[in-house]
């Protein structure tokens, strides 16, 4: 102890003695933290004992403010859905992760030089959720960024309360009995420590599946000893051998055989078991005093109402601000957002390789954005279909680009007299590539040569080794059109899907251009044949959709599941002899409309249902039905 330290210590001791209490240096806390919650905790409450992790009976939704879509989604859920490959190891969302039995742990990440708190990390044992709560004030990512099961969380201390705001969550579960939370949900958590108790209060706001915010409290107890078990690894397998990838277990509306099982076993009125905002409030007890009326109301809730039809409540991931936004995907690949359909850009030591060209309204900005990513000009543009929001920029990008493989080559000097567009000077344009039906349809639409891909392919696969990786273009016959392609960047592990996968709406299955609902489902399954995940259905192969936010395998699987389930419902109605109008009136998409539906615009829910109905009717009894 040096001289000064000794004096200071003495002074402190004297002062403390004068104050009449003991003295000791407690655990230091940083200037931006409140209570230290580091360490391991376990769910310690006695309440809700029936609902830990994969628990809860079918139609046991009381106290959860489900809206019509959420309730119908849950009632259509079949426990066998969890045998689908992409569901087997799916992660746990927030707040569901807290309900998993076992332990969870917090630990801090601090700047080694300033000791400022950067982040609080979490690990949940049985659900193996990896989570980071950023404490350094960084903003949340844009709406077009990828989602994960743990979402993107930021935190702030207010006295002894840690407030955490989480966005960018995946479609997950609120309870392990099929009660969904959507990828539009936001969760605000309050963590309050009282000694060795940690109260967790969560408020989930989900415009897609909830009537009102879902608030819930739970208690956790601090583990005095470090638990020995921290892992619960998962690897998906073949649980139902021989089942088609296109068959997703589900219950038709009004046909769930287990609807009353929980109610009967527990003596609960059916109305109570179906959840909804009313079940959360004390006044609900009055409703149960008239059993006949409650039963009538309950039965009406088990099938779609007569309307009105619901539109998507999802945030539009496209900023629509006249700018091109660049998002790094992974490896050599970026996603450009802002000019209609998404554009994938792969860069390296060769020219830029693009998938799609957008609407063409902001082509100059697209070119400028590509120039910030690569010193080389655009060399290739693959069109995933002929649709204008993916080909509108063709002429501009082609003109701005260059294909260095052509100058000095045989082809570079062979332009015939009178050639126009690309063929006039192929070496000094980017090369447009597409499946041959794209060329045929664009020619049929009498578009200028500069718009039309000159380099087309006919068979299942086109491939190129470019910018240090294999780029494969796969034909997807009769999906949304008859000329669809997906593009896979092998080393970067990214797939650009075009409109086969669209996070903003139901797939625009264009029957007049050769699309079919079964081809769409097959195409989504083809995508899923090429993907893998990094951890619990997060990350791994990244997916650039035709429109909407960056995604991964699980997101595509959820979309595939939706279309497959809707197909089954429409097929059942067709089998029962329903007309198109009757099918539309039955609202076979009712549980997905608040996420993907539209009641106006270029692609309404009615148009989608009509496409499914007509496609199935045209193909019936085709061998590809329910493949």
């Amino acid at each position, binding site marked *: 102890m040096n001289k000064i*330290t000794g004096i200071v210590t003495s002074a402190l001791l004297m*002062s403390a003695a004068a104050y009449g209490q003991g003295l000791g240096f407690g655990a230091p*806390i940083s200037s931006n933290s409140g209570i230290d919650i580091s360490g391991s905790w376990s769910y310690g409450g006695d309440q809700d004992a029936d609902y830990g992790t994969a628990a809860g009976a079918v139609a046991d939704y009381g*106290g959860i403010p489900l809206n019509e879509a959420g309730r119908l989604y849950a009632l259509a859920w079949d426990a066998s859905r969890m045998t689908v490959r992409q569901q087997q190891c799916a992660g746990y969302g927030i707040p569901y992760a807290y309900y998993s039995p076992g332990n969870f742990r917090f630990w801090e990440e601090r700047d080694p030089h300033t000791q400022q708190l950067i982040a609080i990390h979490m690990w949940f044992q049985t659900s193996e959720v990896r989570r980071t709560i950023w404490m350094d004030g960084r903003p949340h990512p844009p709406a077009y960024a990828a989602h994960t099961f743990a979402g993107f969380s930021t935190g702030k201390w207010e*006295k*002894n309360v840690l407030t955490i705001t989480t966005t960018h969550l995946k479609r997950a579960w609120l309870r392990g009995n099929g009660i969904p939370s959507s990828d539009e949900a936001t969760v605000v958590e309050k963590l309050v420590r009282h000694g060795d108790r940690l109260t967790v209060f969560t408020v989930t706001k989900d415009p897609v599946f909830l009537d009102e915010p879902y608030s819930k409290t739970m*208690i956790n107890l601090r583990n005095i000893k470090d638990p020995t078990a921290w892992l619960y690894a998962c690897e998906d397998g073949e649980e139902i051998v021989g089942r088609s990838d296109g068959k997703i277990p589900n219950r038709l509306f009004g046909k769930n055989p287990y609807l009353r099982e929980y109610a009967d076993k527990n003596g609960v009125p059916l109305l109570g078991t179906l959840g909804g905002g009313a*079940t959360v409030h004390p006044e609900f007890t009055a409703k149960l005093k008239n059993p006949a009326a409650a039963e009538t109301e309950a039965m009406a809730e088990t099938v779609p109402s007569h309307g009105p039809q619901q539109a998507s409540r999802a945030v539009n991931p496209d900023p629509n601000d006249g700018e091109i936004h660049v998002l790094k995907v992974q490896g050599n690949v970026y996603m450009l957002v802002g000019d209609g359909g998404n554009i994938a850009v792969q860069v390296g030591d060769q020219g830029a390789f693009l998938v799609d060209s957008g609407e063409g309204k902001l082509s100059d900005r697209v070119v400028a954005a590509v120039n910030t990513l690569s010193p080389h000009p655009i060399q290739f543009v693959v069109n995933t279909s002929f649709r204008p929001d993916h080909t509108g920029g063709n002429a501009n990008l082609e003109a701005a680009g260059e294909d260095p493989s052509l100058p000095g080559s045989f082809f570079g000097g062979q332009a015939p007299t009178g050639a126009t567009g690309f063929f006039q000077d192929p070496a000094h344009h980017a090369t447009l590539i597409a499946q041959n039906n794209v060329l045929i349809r664009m020619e049929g639409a009498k578009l200028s040569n500069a718009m039309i891909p000159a380099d087309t392919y006919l068979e299942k696969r086109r491939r190129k080794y470019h910018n240090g990786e294999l780029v494969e273009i796969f034909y997807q016959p009769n999906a949304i059109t008859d000329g669809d392609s997906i593009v896979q960047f092998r080393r970067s592990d990214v797939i650009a899907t075009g409109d086969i996968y669209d996070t903003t709406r139901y797939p625009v299955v264009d029957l007049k251009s050769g699309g079919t609902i079964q081809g769409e489902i097959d195409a989504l399954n083809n995508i899923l044949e090429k993907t893998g995940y990094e951890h619990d259905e997060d990350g791994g192969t990244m997916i650039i959709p035709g429109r909407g936010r960056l995604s991964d395998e699980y997101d595509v699987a959820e979309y595939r599941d939706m279309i497959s389930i809707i197909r089954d419902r429409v097929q059942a109605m067709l089998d029962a002899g329903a007309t198109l109008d009757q099918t539309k009136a039955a609202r076979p998409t009712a549980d997905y409309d608040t996420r993907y539906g539209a009641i106006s615009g270029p692609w309404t829910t009615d148009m989608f249902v009509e496409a499914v109905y007509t496609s199935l009717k045209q193909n019936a009894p085709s061998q590809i039905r329910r493949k």
Partner: protein
Amino acid sequence: MICNRRRVGLCAMMALISVSVWAQGPGPGGPPQSPKAGAPVEMTGYWVSMVVEDWKYRMLPPTKVKSPPPGIFGGGIGVPVNPEALKVAMAWDPAKDEAAGDQCRSYGAANIMRVPGRIHITWQDEQTLKIETDAGMQTRLFHFGAAQGSGGDWQGVSQATWESLEGFQIPGLGRLSGLGSEKTGSLKVVTAKLKAGYLRKNGIPYSANAVLTEYFDVATEPDGDTYLLITTTVEDPVYLLQPYQTTTHFKKQSDAAGWSPSPCTAR
């Protein structure tokens, strides 16, 4: 001033001066603030229960416990009862309670916050926070300072304190435990001297020896919605194998809408 190692002595002295000033209270020579005046958080007003946790047990008419095995996880009923408690629960007879005038047995302090309804929180005086319930028309009094009353009724005797972080934050040095405290916004209430009652409406018992520890916290959402969070531990050497821990929450109302006083019911 940046407190670096060269300046540690000076910084420490300044910190001690700060502690000294702080220890004198709100102002030179002024009396210490009353619990009401010094309340770190506003809890008064009308609140409505959000019936989410243990929904089935709270919202629906009670059903008699049949024969679950006792256990630390509640033996399937969600309360860590011992065999003696199970016997009592299985013998539950609401008619008998009614005949004895004991319809309020599930409205005692250990369960009243779980009963669906509304509560009204006010300051009865500078030292006493009052909670009234419309369901069962009960009144809880939280006394700051010395406990008051002899208890023996449904709500017992409750002693309240504003919870504090132990120690005092010294700028540049950290927290010195034992040197005063800093209010956090949590209200801690310990309740004892209870009349024996029910932890649930279906007759799961707690004894007169039960002690209830509650923490009340207020959480405000970004949209302004405000919630009251109650973290509860019931310790009962007579009927529980281990402490019974629950959390309950209410949402703030802007007025008395829905306030509907109703007497206790045994069923």
